[in-house]
């Protein structure tokens, strides 16, 4: 057997306790003395300072001795702190070695522990090191995620935006129509094609054309609500989706206002660029089961009819060609069912 004095035991096990047969403390490691605080409790009863939570039923030395070699869960009476340890029988008493277990992180803070409070063989400091490394890496990951989230938002916005006009693009339209249909929201669909745009481009150049397209975008934004989707889907082709609007009179009114506004010549470097617009309309409520492609193609057909009928006008799609809405008719709707 090895005989060790208090100094050596303290180095090997800074949280040791030596008890005599009566359960009185005859030796205590410096770290344990530090966390108990106050006067070193030499000569005092072990059970006055510690209670054994597990195994249950240990309230005296006989029971403690019977559990020698088993893992003990103890509570420090002074502050309720949890410790774990092991008690072994010695000549005339017991030797107990304690540790903080997983409570180490909190204990280091609570008792202001330093390296020298731990045995050199203890991995406590490595454990603290790991917690800090983990925290630093997690922080970095969080930052990366925030940056990625921001970049993703920008990229998503760009993916559904028309670069020239800042309006939505065809992709945005293709995403939105199925959503509205799936949610059962009624909507009006307007297909707009500029009249005489090619002449503007050919006469005044592409810079003039681009200016006109930007002005048209502004006009369309002004004449529609924030909840409407205005998309540029081709060179001088636009689509407006108007959720919650299935009333033909209201739609016809909006279409007419758009035509009126776009018929005002646009100034480009002193040149008057005169255009107008032809519009084809359809409404989701006219379909038993609305389909985006079908509705777009119907609106396109109505647009073609408007062009064919002399431009600068709007028409609703009709299977029969009886629904003409011209500026001459004013707001009086030429819808087949109401005209």
């Amino acid at each position, binding site marked *: 057997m090895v005989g060790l004095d208090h100094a050596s035991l303290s180095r090997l096990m800074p949280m040791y306790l030596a008890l005599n047969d009566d359960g009185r403390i005859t030796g205590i490691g410096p770290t344990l003395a530090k966390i108990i605080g106050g006067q070193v409790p030499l000569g005092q009863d072990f059970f006055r300072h510690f209670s054994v939570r597990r195994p249950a039923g240990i309230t005296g030395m006989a029971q403690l001795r019977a559990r020698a070699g088993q893992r003990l869960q103890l509570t420090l009476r002074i502050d309720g702190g949890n410790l774990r340890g092991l008690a072994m029988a010695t000549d005339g008493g017991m030797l107990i070695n304690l540790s903080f277990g997983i409570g180490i992180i909190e204990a280091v803070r609570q008792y202001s522990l330093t390296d020298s409070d731990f045995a050199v063989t203890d991995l406590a*400091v490595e454990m603290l*090191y790991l917690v*800090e*490394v983990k*925290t630093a890496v997690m922080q*970095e*990951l969080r*930052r990366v995620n925030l940056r990625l989230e921001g970049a993703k938002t920008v990229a998503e916005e760009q993916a559904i935006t028309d670069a020239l006009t800042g309006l939505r693009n065809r992709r945005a339209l293709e995403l939105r129509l199925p959503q509205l249909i799936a949610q059962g929201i009624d909507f009006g669909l307007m297909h707009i094609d500029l009249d005489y745009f090619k002449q503007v481009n050919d006469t005044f150049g592409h810079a003039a054309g681009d200016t006109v397209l930007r002005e048209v975008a502004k006009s369309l934004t002004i004449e529609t609500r924030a909840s409407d989707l205005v998309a540029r889907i081709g060179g001088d082709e636009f689509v407006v989706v108007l959720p919650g609007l299935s009333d033909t009179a209201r739609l016809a009114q909006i279409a007419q206002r758009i035509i009126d506004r776009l018929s005002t010549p646009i100034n480009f470097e002193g040149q008057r660029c005169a255009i107008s617009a032809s519009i084809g309309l359809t409404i989701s409520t006219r379909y038993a089961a609305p389909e985006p492609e079908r509705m777009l193609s119907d609106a396109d057909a109505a647009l073609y009819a408007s062009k064919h009928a002399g431009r600068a006008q709007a028409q609703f799609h009709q299977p029969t060609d009886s629904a003409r809405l011209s500026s001459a008719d004013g707001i009086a709707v030429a819808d087949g069912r109401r005209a």
Partner: protein
Amino acid sequence: MHGLINRSIQCFLRDTYGACAWQSIASAAGLGFDNFEPLLRYDDGLTHAVVAAAAKQLARSRETVLEDLGTYLVSHPNLEGLRRLLRFGGVNFVEFLHSMEDLPEHGRLGLPDLDVPEFALEDLSDGRFLLRVSQLVPGIGHVVVGLLRAMADDYGALVLLDHGGIDDGREVVTVHLLDHAHSAGRRFELAMPGG
């Protein structure tokens, strides 16, 4: 090279010389982006290009730039975390020096794919040491000189440091510890601050 290392170089240049200086170094190095992401990997060539561009742009020698980088890594408040992790290595400067040999393992505990140079410490007695460093990047020894200088300050130790050239593919740093408790140094609590 690991993004964390590239990111540290970026932060050093940005915090020391300003955002504009970093921007022009990044473009002179031909990065094609503004920021290194700390958890990605990059071609080693980019790291070399950044260091070379920084030396040229700042009209300083490569050695000086690298040494300043080493000092920045442990002394700048933005990298307090790294200083703390290094301080876990030992309670005094000599223990810390010995812990440099464990640095690759310590690094990999946190990030398994982190490149950390290998260190070998030779104790020549009388407070003299030779620290050999594997060449993660040419000139790594200068980074180590700057880092050890800042760590000596941190521990309050008085130390003479020098780059002793290259020996068998490893850069050699000579360390002469004159006084291990020259000044009070900076406090180090095991418990994480503010957590």
